[in-house]
Each structure stands twice: as structure tokens, then as C-alpha cells.
């Protein structure tokens, strides 16, 4: 017998006795399974795109992430140039993508591209990581990234400043919608990595005092294009 069979056997044996129903509950009828919409038990998400953007902005601010709406690509480029000057960037990490390509060309800084592999020390010495994303979640102010949309796993967490470029069409109201979106997009061919990023890296392990930039980025900037 394999260990798999042993453990599954133990489980089946244990489950022969049926558990009593939960003894305390509000109301007689139990809750049903997750309905599609609207998820009333979760913090509410905005209805229109404008409302969602406003909600995202409030949540991102609370999470201490920078969020900027840009009217067009040149405005986004201008913004990143300002960040580069302010942060004294000497080298950036990025992946190939429609938005990242256009932006990096204008930025004109030495760069490390993660596409198809890279040297870890090279990426570690970058001042910023430039990525795209799968979705922005209004409900929580989170950025959903995946291996293909964000240049792998490390680009969005290793450099000290993470800059995300997103399109308005990527805004979703809540976590349920974000998960549905990737499920629909990838079907059975999921990437090996997906992550909801909610603000810059943080810790409260010393006297519960908030410190940003524990191991990951100290800064997170999200630029929303139309």
C-alpha cells in the first residue's frame, strides 16, 4: 500500500461517522454555496468603472501604494521619468509587453529583461521593476499578477520599487471577479504563479509597528491607462 492509499483509507474510515450539524447558527436555514453576484458578505465594490476606480484609489491610498490615472501613454512615461529621477534609478528590471516596451524605450535606462531567464544578482541590483498585470481589484486595492503578465515571479518582488502598468479594461469590482477572469482566461493551462499584491511589502513583527519594505518592494506605484 502506498502512503497515498494509507492516508486516503484513514480518511474514508474516519468519515464513516457523520459529523453532527453545526450547533450554533443565525437562522434555521444554512447558507447556500457562493452565488455569483452580488457577494453581499464582502466589502462592497463599485458598480460603474468610474466608481471602481475611485474605490481602488481609496484602497490603494490606505495600503500606502501610489495610484495615478494617466490620460495617455506619454503621461505615464512622464510620470515614470519623474519617479526615476526622484529615486535616482540607474537600472531597471522589466519584461516584454505592449506597455512595458513602449515605456522602457522612452526611459532609456540600462535594463535587465526577465523574459526567458536572467541572473538573480542582476535583477537584485535593479532600482525598480516594471510590470504589467492581469487585473486591478477595486474591492481591495490589489493588483493581480501572474507569471506571464508580470515577467515571472521575482520581478514584482525583488527590486525595491514595483511599477505596474494597467489598462482600464483590467479593472474588476472584486476578488470573485478577478478569480473568474483568470479562470476563464487560462482554463486548464494556469501559469505556475499568480499573486494578489496589496500595497508595498510590510511587517509589524517588532512591537506591532508598521514598517514598509520588509523583504519586498518599499514602494508600489500603479499607473492606470485608458
Amino acid at each position: 500500500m502506498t502512503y497515498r492509499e494509507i492516508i486516503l483509507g484513514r480518511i474514508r474510515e474516519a468519515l464513516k461517522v457523520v459529523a453532527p450539524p453545526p450547533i450554533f447558527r443565525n437562522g434555521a436555514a444554512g447558507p447556500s454555496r457562493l452565488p455569483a453576484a452580488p457577494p453581499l458578505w464582502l466589502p462592497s465594490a463599485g458598480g460603474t468603472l468610474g466608481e471602481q476606480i475611485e474605490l481602488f484609489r481609496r484602497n490603494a491610498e490606505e495600503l500606502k501604494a501610489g495610484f495615478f490615472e494617466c490620460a495617455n501613454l506619454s503621461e505615464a512615461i512622464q510620470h515614470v521619468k519623474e519617479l526615476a529621477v526622484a529615486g535616482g534609478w540607474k537600472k531597471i528590471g522589466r519584461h516584454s509587453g505592449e506597455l512595458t516596451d513602449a515605456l522602457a524605450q522612452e526611459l532609456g535606462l540600462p535594463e535587465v529583461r526577465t523574459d526567458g531567464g536572467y541572473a538573480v544578482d542582476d535583477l537584485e541590483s535593479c532600482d525598480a521593476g516594471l510590470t504589467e498585470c492581469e487585473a486591478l481589484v477595486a474591492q481591495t486595492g490589489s493588483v493581480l499578477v501572474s507569471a506571464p503578465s508580470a515577467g515571472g515571479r521575482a520581478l514584482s518582488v525583488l527590486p525595491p520599487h514595483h511599477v505596474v502598468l494597467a489598462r482600464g479594461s483590467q479593472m474588476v469590482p472584486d476578488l470573485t471577479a478577478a478569480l473568474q477572469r483568470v479562470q476563464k482566461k487560462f482554463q486548464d493551462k494556469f501559469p505556475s504563479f499568480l499573486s494578489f499584491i496589496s500595497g508595498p511589502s510590510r511587517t509589524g513583527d517588532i512591537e506591532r509597528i508598521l514598517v514598509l519594505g520588509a523583504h519586498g518592494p518599499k514602494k508600489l506605484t500603479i499607473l492606470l491607462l485608458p
Partner: protein
Amino acid sequence: MNAGAKEFNEAARRNTADLRQRDRIQKALAGYYLKREDYQNRFPDWAGARDLAAEIKREAINHLDRYLDEFASRLEARGTKVFWAPDGQAARDYIVGVARQHKVRSIIKSKSMTAEEIHLNDALEQAGFEVVESDLGEFIVQLRREPPYHIVFPAMHLTRQQISDLFHDRLGSEPTNNPEDLTMIARRIMRRKYCEADLGISGANFAIAETGMISITENEGNARLTTSLPKIHVALVGIEKVLPKLSDLALFLPMLATAGAGQPITCYNTLYGGPRQPGESDGPEEFHVVLLDNRRTELLADAEQRDALHCIRCGACLNVCPVFKNIGGHSYGTTYQGPIGSVITPHLRGLQDWKHLSQASSLCGACSQTCPVKIDLHHHLLHNRRYAVRLRPAPVENCLQAGLAFVMCRPRLYALAARLARIAQPLSRLVEGTVLDPLRAWTKTRSLPPMAVKSFHQLWQERKKS
């Protein structure tokens, strides 16, 4: 009283007397209470959310065989090696084996209470491997060579001064009173470790059956780095972590953050579904998932307490527990502290050795009320007391109870006993709590209020006469 109970009582007494430590715990938790309330109130229906979370975990745990099988099959289909570990020994042997086979030089690890449970670090160190804890709190307690104080806040019992001294002694850093500076010292050290390590070990918060993924919740980014850079990733996962569907996370991620840390959402919630896939730019070449039983199936077999396996390890029950707040996390001597630890440890490590934890409760029910997945914690503590007595009856207590029942069922005898007690009580005050008192174990910390001069029965009779 067994050795474990004696040790627990001594530690509890010692730590309760440490007023400064208690003060630190209170201070650390004060902020949590405010924030938790704030974010909980943003849920339009927190009670409904708890109902639903409990229902989803109930579904998962009561069909665990099906969901685990699905979880493992889907992971394997995409190149993950799944190892089923019946006990801690098998899990340790497997992970040490992976490290040996790849001749790894250094190991980086992110926070995992399951790894604490099976003492994985000790096993790896004995086999000659260096393991570095990357979570800041865990790194601090690792340097102090002590176990985590709390399942979510491992170093909550320490002041910045103590941490500064520790870093100065062990790492040679300049003393500083600034939490940010202290965090940056750890950050600099850890950066090198991530880049050099060839094996990353993590736990998991959830195991998604539908898509074959593990989900890891963290704030620091250390788990993400641990699972991105080394060429091998091993995740140790308790079999109870299963959730049926990917969409279940839409509920569990915000709930875990709110209940566990008073946050609306944790900084990183990451899903891993395999090793580096074709076309991806990084990630480990090998991904191992170790599914750990370690007597969880015994808890599963106890239908009455099966819901203890719903636990998502948020730590909320510790934060509200009056016993935890006074005796602190290290008094328990267990991997899992507080009410949930007191419930499951007797199952995972033996009832007779750990039954004393069932008494470490005021049965106030704050734990059950706060639990986001509605585990009936304080009733389970009562059940464990009952089991313990059934397995090993206490003759003295039994005689006392039988005697009391005998007297109370006989009104005349009861009246006589009450009259005698009225006479005896003032006399007993002379020895109460001293070594001469036969009931000293009870009376040294407790005092019976004086009995009324007349019983209710007497008063009633007098009233009827007048």
C-alpha cells in the same frame, strides 16, 4: 499531576507574574482590536460571512478524501511531486532526502506552523543543513533559539530594545531603537540568503482542489522570494488546508486578514500551481508538496470535534483569550497556543499528556465567538475534560461528587449538613489556605463567601408564620 501539567502550571505562574510581558501583550493587541473591529464592520454581513466560511470548510473536511485526491492529481498533472506523509517522521525524512539528493548548500524558509509542529528545522540541522527563517518575527525567535510565541505574531513578546540587543550580539549590528532600522538589518542579511539558497521551504494557508494550487498569505514578501529564487521549492501542507474551489478564496483571503491581523487584505496572497512552466522566466525547477497527516485523521474520526480541522490558523482565538493574554504563548509548551492549541494538542500529541490544557480556559466562549470559521472551541475544551475523566477516572473527585449528590437528594440530611456547615465555617477560617487546611489546593487562591445566617428555607417558613 503529570510532568507536562506541572511544567505548564509553573510556566503559567511565572509568566503571569511577569507584569511587563503582560503589558507588552496587551499593548500589542490593543491596536489589533481596534483595526479588526474597523475592518470587520466593513463587511456588510460579518455573521453571514462566518456562516458561509464554516459551511465551505465543513464541506471540504467532510469530503476530504475526494478533495485531497483532486488536489494531488491536478498538481501532479503539471509536474509537481506530491508526497503523502502519514506522520512527522515520514515528512522530515522526505524533505531531508530532497535536500541530500540535490546536495543543497543553504536553505531558506518562510513561516510555517506545520513545520514547527514536526520540528523540521531540527531535523535539517541534524542532517547538516543550515536553515534560515526569512519571516522577520521567525528570524528573531530563531536567533533566540526559542519557539514562536504566537502562531501569527511570533515575536510579539519582545521589545525593540531586546531585538536590538539580540541583533547586536548575534549579527554584530549597531544598536538602534528604531523598528525600521531593525527591519532593514534583517532585510540586508536576508537578501543575500535568498540569492544564495538552493532550497526554499514554505507552508501553505490553503490548498485549492479545483485547480491544484497552494495559496500562501503573507505581508513581508519573504515567502514570495523563498518560492521564486531557489531551484527547489518544498511546501509542507496539512491535509486539512483544502478548499474546494478557487472562488472560495474571494471569501477566505479577506476573512483571514481581518480576523488574523486586523487588515482588510494581506499584502501578498500568492497561488502556486507547479514548478516553472515552459515559457516562464523563473521559478523553481522542482516543486514538492508534502501532504501531512500526523494524526489529523484521528481528529477527523472524532465526529464531534471534527470541526477543529476547519481552523485556518488566523490566531484570533489567541488574541481574545483571557488565559492567553495572561500566561502568554510560551507557557503552553505546544506548537499551537491558545484555545485552538488546547483543543487540538491532546488529539495530536496524546490526551493524557496534554489534558491539562483543557483546564486552561475560563469557558467564557470569547474564542468560539471570534472564530471566523465558527469552531465551537470552548465546548470542545469541555468535551476534552470529559474524555480525560472517562479514560482515567479521578476517584477522590468522584467520591466527593457522589457524596454531594447523596446529601442533596435528601432534604433532612441537607438541612442538617447546612447547619453543621454554618457552625464549621467560622472555625475553618482560622486555617483557610494554610498548610493545616485539607482543602488547601483549592482554598489557597479561593475563598468561599460567608454563608447566610438563615437559609432561604428558614426565611420562607418564618414568613409564612407571620
